[in-house]
């Protein structure tokens, strides 16, 4: 409920800021490149059987950096998002910190898209990389669980410009559904990784080795980024993003994660 109120409040603020002059054109991003920065809040709901059978939920914050480019034939968006959350279990009262770094590269083909009036639907492909550290505050030798994913996903972008209260906006959704994923998790009863066994110094790439290639059945992920874009007169823009993701990985220690993020981003024309 709180999230919904914040969401509504941010929309209201955008409507009320009279000082934002704008010069909206339907193809405002045509042949343009933008640098994207954003900040906001996030919420995570995680059930990691390697840690506990209990669900952990909690809020936190995040930042996003990225790049957006639109040409006649394509739309490209690449973002790197970092989130820090402090979920806890209402049953045990225990808490953990989750550190999440996620990079998404998206490429949409305008040539293969469908346009119905102002509504536009573009198919695309995405590459996703995700790294998560869960640090349980009450555990000792197995307090820190790390996992990594690399996914390839078909994706879709749906967008529609509209005018409301004499101001131009664009509403859209980016969505990805990975078909192929490379995933690594710690050993069955340890936080060590298979590749780090017998090594005195654990190297970064040890966390990436000995993973498994997954598809539907063992791994499911659906992520969306719903946005409300508010172009400014200067050619820059503000964007309100709502990120949502659900992931289920049927590993030896299954893990299910739901994530939400509400971010306000600035688009600076390069």
């Amino acid at each position, binding site marked *: 409920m709180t999230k919904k109120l914040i*969401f509504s409040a941010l929309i209201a603020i955008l409507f009320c800021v009279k000082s934002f002059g704008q010069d909206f054109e339907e193809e405002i991003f045509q042949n343009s490149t933008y640098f994207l920065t954003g900040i906001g809040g996030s919420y995570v*709901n995680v059930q990691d059987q390697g840690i*506990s059978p209990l669900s952990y939920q909690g809020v936190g914050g995040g930042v996003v950096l990225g790049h957006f480019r639109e040409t006649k034939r394509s739309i490209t968006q690449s973002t790197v998002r970092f989130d820090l959350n402090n979920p806890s*279990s209402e*049953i045990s009262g225990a808490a953990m910190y989750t550190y999440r770094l996620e990079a998404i590269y998206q490429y949409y083909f305008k040539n293969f898209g469908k346009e119905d009036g102002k509504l536009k639907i573009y198919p695309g492909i995405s590459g996703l990389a995700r790294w998560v550290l869960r640090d349980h505050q009450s555990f000792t*030798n197995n307090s820190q669980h790390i996992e990594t994913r690399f996914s390839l996903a078909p994706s879709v972008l749906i967008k529609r410009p509209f005018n*409301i209260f004499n101001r131009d906006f664009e509403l859209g959704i980016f969505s990805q559904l990975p078909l192929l994923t490379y995933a690594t998790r710690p050993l069955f009863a340890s936080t060590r990784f298979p590749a780090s066994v017998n090594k005195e110094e654990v190297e970064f790439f040890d966390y990436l080795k000995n993973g498994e290639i997954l598809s539907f059945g063992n791994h499911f992920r659906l992520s969306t980024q719903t946005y409300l874009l508010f172009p400014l007169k200067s050619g820059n823009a503000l964007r309100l993003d709502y990120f949502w993701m659900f992931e289920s990985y049927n590993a030896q220690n299954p893990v299910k994660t739901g994530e939400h993020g509400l971010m306000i981003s600035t688009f600076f024309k390069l």
Partner: protein
Amino acid sequence: MKKLILCIVCLSAAVFSGCEKMFIEENPEPSNAVVFDHLWNTVDQKYSFFTDKDIDWDAVRTQFRSRAIRADNIIELFNVLADMLFILEDGHVNISAGIDLSRNWQWFLDFETNFDFDIIERNYLVPSEDYQISGPLHNTIIDSVGYIYYESFSSSVSTSLMNYIIQKFTVKEINSLEGPVAGLIIDVRNNGGGSISNAFTITNRFAIEKTKVADWYYKNGPGHDDFTQAEEKFIEFEGNEDRRFNKPIVVLTNRSSYSSANFFASMMSFLPNVTIMGDQTGGGGGLPINNELPNGWRFRFSSTRTIDANGNNIEFGVEPDIYVALDSADRNNGIDTIIERAISHIKGN
């Protein structure tokens, strides 16, 4: 139209905000059966010493499950679960329920203590002009022999601290002796363990050359014998090269030297100038990990095996080279028999 779009935005936010809850199960029902099954299954799949201890865990389930289900309150349930885990005879296995902490302490309660810190403090430490408490290490010089008492491996020890203590024991300007000590006693009696890295820090300070001390095996599957390949553990000198310590060292142990203290004694036993003296250590050769039960209780259990470089499973303790017990007559006279014997051993008496 405008209202419609606004509605769509708000509706999509509302729908997505709770969406994953359709896929993520609620917290499991904390019934007695579910709690018992989670504990039994997790231990069944992740505990590391079933084969070494020849435990029939299926029979344990048969024995305890109906009792757990019949439990009328949380105290009864806790006691049934604690009784079940007691069968593992492992000091690294506990349930922490807030109301109580289950424990198996037979590994020291069934034996003589062979330790009295009051005697050491009153008769060996405080009267000595060399007595210092350097971080977690009580240290002094007793009858020309260096003495270190380390109470818990949970307290961090650094190589620089070890360098200082070795310097203190070898440089006459900063101790009361005319020269270096004749040897060193490291007392880890009643040391219940802590961080294994502190055991390596101290052992490495006395290592002479790179020496293999153990193999670690991590559980990597649900079968009782599913382990990774051996992870070889080595000790190797770290510290001030100009102040290596090659004199005789005696490590004092008792049945309450557990976990990291047990591992420390095992590692030190591979050094040629080290003698283990006192009583057998309490054991604890598995790295414990934590988990939670559906009712929120926390539990821990061993998830690795440690086999020393001679092929001994140190879960069952490290035997001393020389068994020495605390003599009751000595005790009454404020004498620690084991320290006295260690001093004699170092001095070659």
